[in-house]
């Protein structure tokens, strides 16, 4: 059921001075929400920019929508949002709506205003709003950008840090918008978003890809990752033994805790420990820490 991919990547690489993005192979599952998790500078934006066709100076092949070759069709079916100001700074919201209508065939102006309204942008104010886009706050800008992309009929969304400028209430709304988008597609709509703060997006993440220093260090369906690792807590008298077995390890004066690979759990037999299912954010942090240290 989840064997199909919306994007297939082979031998992708992009070199900068002192940094290299290198992805030998990656399939992004179709019909799901996939999170790209990593610290600042891990290469998330570079990767999304390549996927979105903003950056073309890379090596490797990217296949969209199961072999679709028609670039116009790929563009029409893909929505992208990012941190850049890609609307003209002086454009007002009605001008943004008109321009998007010209750029994309399946842009629904009424839906755009509906979503703006739903996100708390004063609808009566919008139509005669003389305020240029660059005069809006960061959170307001992101709301307009999101409304703009969700107002289009698409099959895939590439969202670069969509939650960052939003307050907790809006992040929750964004999660629900993603779920509605996925539901509407009935297995055909996919979302790929990056985040450095997975906690807010945990309940919408189906597949997680963790990136460190330009490389993918862990990936999988969130339910599978939660079975791959076990959260272990114990007393300090067992800390030295546990330290050598655990995948990640942290000690305080009250005891230790860390993640253990499920396959290694047997080695902890005899220790007085408690076990829990870890959250995606706990897994991400442990994995990121591990690979930051190695590099």
């Amino acid at each position, binding site marked *: *059921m989840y064997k199909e991919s919306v994007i297939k990547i082979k031998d992708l690489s992009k070199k900068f001075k002192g940094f290299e993005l290198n992805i030998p192979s990656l399939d992004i599952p179709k*019909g799901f929400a996939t999170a790209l998790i990593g610290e600042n500078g891990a290469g998330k934006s570079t990767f999304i920019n390549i996927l979105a066709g903003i950056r073309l100076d890379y090596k490797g092949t990217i296949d969209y929508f199961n072999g679709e070759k028609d670039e116009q069709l790929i563009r029409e079916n893909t929505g992208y949002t990012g941190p850049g100001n890609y609307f003209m700074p002086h454009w007002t919201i009605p001008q943004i709506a008109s321009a998007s209508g010209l750029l994309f065939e399946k842009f629904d102006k009424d839906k755009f205003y509906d979503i703006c309204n739903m996100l708390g942008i004063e609808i009566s104010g919008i139509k005669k709003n003389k305020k240029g886009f660059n005069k809006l706050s960061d959170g307001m800008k992101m709301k307009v950008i999101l409304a703009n992309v969700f107002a289009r009929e698409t099959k895939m969304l590439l969202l670069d840090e969509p939650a960052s400028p939003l307050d907790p209430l809006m992040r929750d709304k964004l999660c*629900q918008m993603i779920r509605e988008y*996925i*539901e509407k597609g009935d*297995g055909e709509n996919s979302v790929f978003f990056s985040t450095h703060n997975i906690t807010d997006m945990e*309940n*919408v993440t189906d*597949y997680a890809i963790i990136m460190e220093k330009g490389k993918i260090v862990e990936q999988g369906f969130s*339910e599978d990752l939660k079975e791959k690792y076990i959260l272990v807590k114990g007393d300090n008298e067992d800390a030295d033994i546990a330290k050598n077995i655990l995948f990640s390890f942290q000690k305080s004066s009250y005891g230790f805790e860390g993640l253990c690979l499920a396959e290694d759990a047997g080695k902890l037999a005899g220790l007085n420990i408690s076990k829990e299912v870890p959250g995606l954010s706990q897994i991400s942090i442990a994995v990121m820490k591990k690979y930051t240290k190695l590099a």
Partner: protein
Amino acid sequence: MRIMQNSGIPIYQQIAGQFQEDILSGKLKQGEYLPSIRGLAKDLRISVITTMKAYEELEKNGLVTAVQGKGYYVNAQDSEMLREQHIRKMEEYLINAISAAKIANVSNSELIDILKMLIETEENA
């Protein structure tokens, strides 16, 4: 359906458990379809993969059958299997009671006495 985020029980198990109850109690009848995976994820505000895992769990236990492109429908429940399921549940609760008794330092014979007493009060109620 009630989902608890911090109960310690994985969300997929909570979902599977509640559907199992509805099926075994007859609230969901043979041949009825479960809600769509993505629709349920949206309504419960959780990820798609979690609902998918819950449905797979139900399928593994023989309670539902997946039909490609149509979803999951409720299987006919034979009474022997129903009984089996209830017995398993009963055992699970009894094991919980035993471990609580251990913590509270209640002896085995005391525990059995309490059980007998509870059965009597239930019957007289």
